[in-house]
């Protein structure tokens, strides 16, 4: 069995054009996340975009988002405001 896989290393193989001015993923209501026990977003997100802060809230590093759309529907409380990045921004696959 593999130990914990370093997702940051995997993500570093992907080219992004980060939109510094406009985060395309946001939490609707942080209180909902605090009440969510399972926090599946920490796991199912293939880019590891969702991280837990020491205070127990969710931090979104939208810059590394692969735009798959899993969190739009995977969040059991529909607590994510989801959109694609603006045109030209975001993931830019070299191989795909």
């Amino acid at each position, binding site marked *: 069995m593999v130990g914990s896989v370093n997702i940051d290393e995997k993500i570093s193989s992907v080219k992004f054009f980060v939109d510094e001015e406009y985060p395309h993923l946001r939490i609707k209501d942080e209180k909902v996340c605090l009440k969510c026990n399972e926090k599946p977003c920490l*796991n*199912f997100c293939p880019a590891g975009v969702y991280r837990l802060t020491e205070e127990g809230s969710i931090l979104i590093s939208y810059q590394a988002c*692969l*735009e798959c759309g899993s969190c739009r529907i*995977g969040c059991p409380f529909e607590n994510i405001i989801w959109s*694609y990045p603006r045109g030209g921004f975001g993931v830019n696959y070299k191989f*795909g």
Partner: protein
Amino acid sequence: MSDFSFDVVIVGGGPAGLACGIHLAKKGVKVLLIERGRFCGGKNLFGGVIYSESLKEIVPEFPKVDPFPAERPVTEEGYFIVSKEGVVKILHTKKTPEESFTALRAKFDNWLSEYALKKGVFIAPKTKVVDFLWKGSQITGVVLDRPKSFQDDRPTEISAKLVILAEGVNRVLTEKAGLVYGPFKPEEVVLAVKEVLQLPKGAMEVRLGVSENKGLAVEIIGEITSGLPGTGFLYTNKTTLSFGVGIFLKTLVDLNLKPYELHEKAKEHSIFKELFQGAETLEYGAHLIPEWGIKGLPKLYGNGVLVIGDSAGLVNPLFREGTNLAIYSGLMAADTAFSALEKGDFSAKTLKTYEDRFKESYIYKDLILLKDLKEFLFRNSHFFSIYPDMLYQSLSLYFSAQGRYKRDVIREIFGIIRKKRGLFGVLKDFLNIGRLFW
């Protein structure tokens, strides 16, 4: 007053949108294709294999094209059935290798968009459609995320007689157009993660036994997904390998699993240890596969709008079809658009002929055929866990039966089947598979 005006606006530069655009432009229709990526293909990812038969409909000279957009002809394809201990390989050598090719979408879709440009399709990359223009209940164009000009930062508006949605699996505009009732559910999509891997020079050919003009396309089931419903896949590109796993999003959410850990675990299975030795990850990626099937099929047409490709959920997971169905739906939509243009009527009533065409196609019939497949897989997850073990262990006995009375060997094999699934269970499974298709 809108800023630009086109006969047809297509949203999304994947195979569906591009096929549709090429078909229309060839007939002289003024068509604009809007792509949010920096180029067509930059956001796209698949397993994957492309099929010549569909591509030839839009690029008749394929595969005799330069530059060549695909990777290798598929000369061998099949299944790896993986147990914890080993693998049973079922490989089929193709009589006509020009039928399908492995491909990488950033290159392939980009090539197709170059072809589309040459045929007269206007392409606007780096542009996102954020909304529709409406006239009553009729869609009459799109709103972009770009300002009108340096002096006027209101969003650009483009009017169109018809808008064709080829926006991919995350069908946000299709929802906005009122053609689907809410977002799809986690049990309706497979989340696939994939890596493009570079092996040391010459290693791929040696380790997989593929010479320069040969290619391998393999679906992998069993322990590759840790026995969960889903598949792995392995494709040989020109100088790289595509290797990935796809699992229902619902499974990942329910079991709180990390898809890239499953992927890494699959890579580290003993049967792949040698293959991936010294491999470097050139690119990691993830994508959803729409598997809502016929039950989640959106309404394919509305007033001034049509839906094609992944947005409609046109994939056949059992037969690994997707890009070809996307192309065909694009062609059917183009034919519909063309007759609507001739008639000068873009109401839902006229555009319904797209659905009529679709319902006559094998794509629709196949969706009906596979209507219960998803539920079947969820209900019968032992196909992914028990059967691969059973098959491997039985064959291990069969292939090492020398020096023994064979009746004992056969009895032992039956013993394994009885223990793992039970003879009645196996019989029931076969009947259930039969019932699924007949």
